[in-house]
């Protein structure tokens, strides 16, 4: 964990398009599935702010930002899956702040570096917000209602699973995995089992694999 601001990867260390293509070719089915799940998760987190984009749409957007030099990948520091998930997180975080997609490609981090809050800060993180306009307020309200419905649905899905409720409540309060384990006295194995159950239950309910639309 570091509080240092993200540094741009020097051009001479940045992967070439041929190296990027080779990294894609080398991805295993589990790695591509992980990327897809992560992309879906980020889009789902955006809710209506995703503006009908899907997890699939995030792949070319993240890749283009790498190919055109907006982001740079130092393959000696992070693997391709790590780079792509970092880029997807950064891009969707910028969208969530209400920036236009084309603006999100201008300034950003290259490698995932977490600060003390466990967030990956982008260079736009410190830009002052002038407040939402009428359209933004409408989107925010739409998202607020959708969020409320999803949380109700999550409560309903786990109403008979006390341990899952404990983990979910801690997550909602922003605890990281070690914090959750410490808070509830869970072993790593117990925690992993509960998380797997949560992921699968949410997945079956369409809350991890197909977006938030199922409960909207």
């Amino acid at each position, binding site marked *: 964990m570091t509080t240092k601001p993200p540094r741009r990867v020097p051009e001479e260390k940045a992967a070439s398009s041929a190296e990027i293509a080779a990294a*894609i070719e080398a991805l295993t*089915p589990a790695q591509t*599935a992980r990327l897809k799940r992560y992309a879906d*998760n980020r889009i789902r987190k955006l809710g209506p702010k995703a503006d009908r984009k899907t997890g699939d749409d995030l792949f070319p957007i993240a890749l283009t930002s790498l190919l055109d030099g907006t982001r740079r990948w130092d393959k000696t520091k992070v693997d391709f899956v790590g780079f792509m998930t970092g880029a997807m997180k950064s891009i969707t975080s910028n969208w969530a702040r209400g920036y236009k997609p084309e603006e999100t490609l201008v300034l950003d981090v290259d490698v995932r570096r977490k600060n003390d809050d466990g967030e990956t800060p982008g260079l736009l993180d410190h830009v002052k917000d002038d407040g939402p306009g009428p359209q933004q307020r409408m989107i925010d309200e739409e998202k607020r209602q959708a969020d*409320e419905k999803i*949380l109700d649905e999550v409560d309903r899905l786990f109403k008979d699973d006390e341990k899952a409720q404990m983990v979910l409540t801690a997550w909602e309060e*922003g605890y990281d995995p070690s914090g959750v384990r410490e808070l509830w006295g869970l072993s790593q194995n117990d925690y992993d089992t509960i*998380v797997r159950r949560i*992921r699968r239950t949410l997945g079956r309910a369409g809350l991890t694999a197909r977006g938030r639309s199922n409960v909207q």
Partner: protein
Amino acid sequence: MSNKKTDQEKLDSLMDALGDSILQENDEEILEDLLQAGTDPDAEAARLKTMMLDTVKAFQQRRLRAAREGYSREIEKLERKKPLIPDSPQERRKLFSLFVQQPHYAEFVTAHYRNLEGLTDNDIETYLEDLAELGILEKLNTEEIDGKE
């Protein structure tokens, strides 16, 4: 627990934790989940890889096209300027001699270039190409046609 969070903050935290858990998930679990959902992991991997490689290919082709267009523009520019430089060394030397005699171009000519005898044909040709690139030869030709000294 900490101070009260909004629904959006709670859900955002939950989604972040889920996202992080996806990164920690082991490969067997991910593949098993895909199979349970009725998705063929190999076919899904092939689909995603094709999509990503198509993006790379499209970008490379765009760059190649831009480079080709840039190259064509440069060649066109050079071709336009070429007729200004005579074909024979004698005529090139004559043109260069005319150029160095123009007082208003004196700033472009160093002492070395004023000594025509000491210049090779190649020196003169290179210098004329530079002058053509700067648009000076074109001006010089116009001045010659207009009879301006």
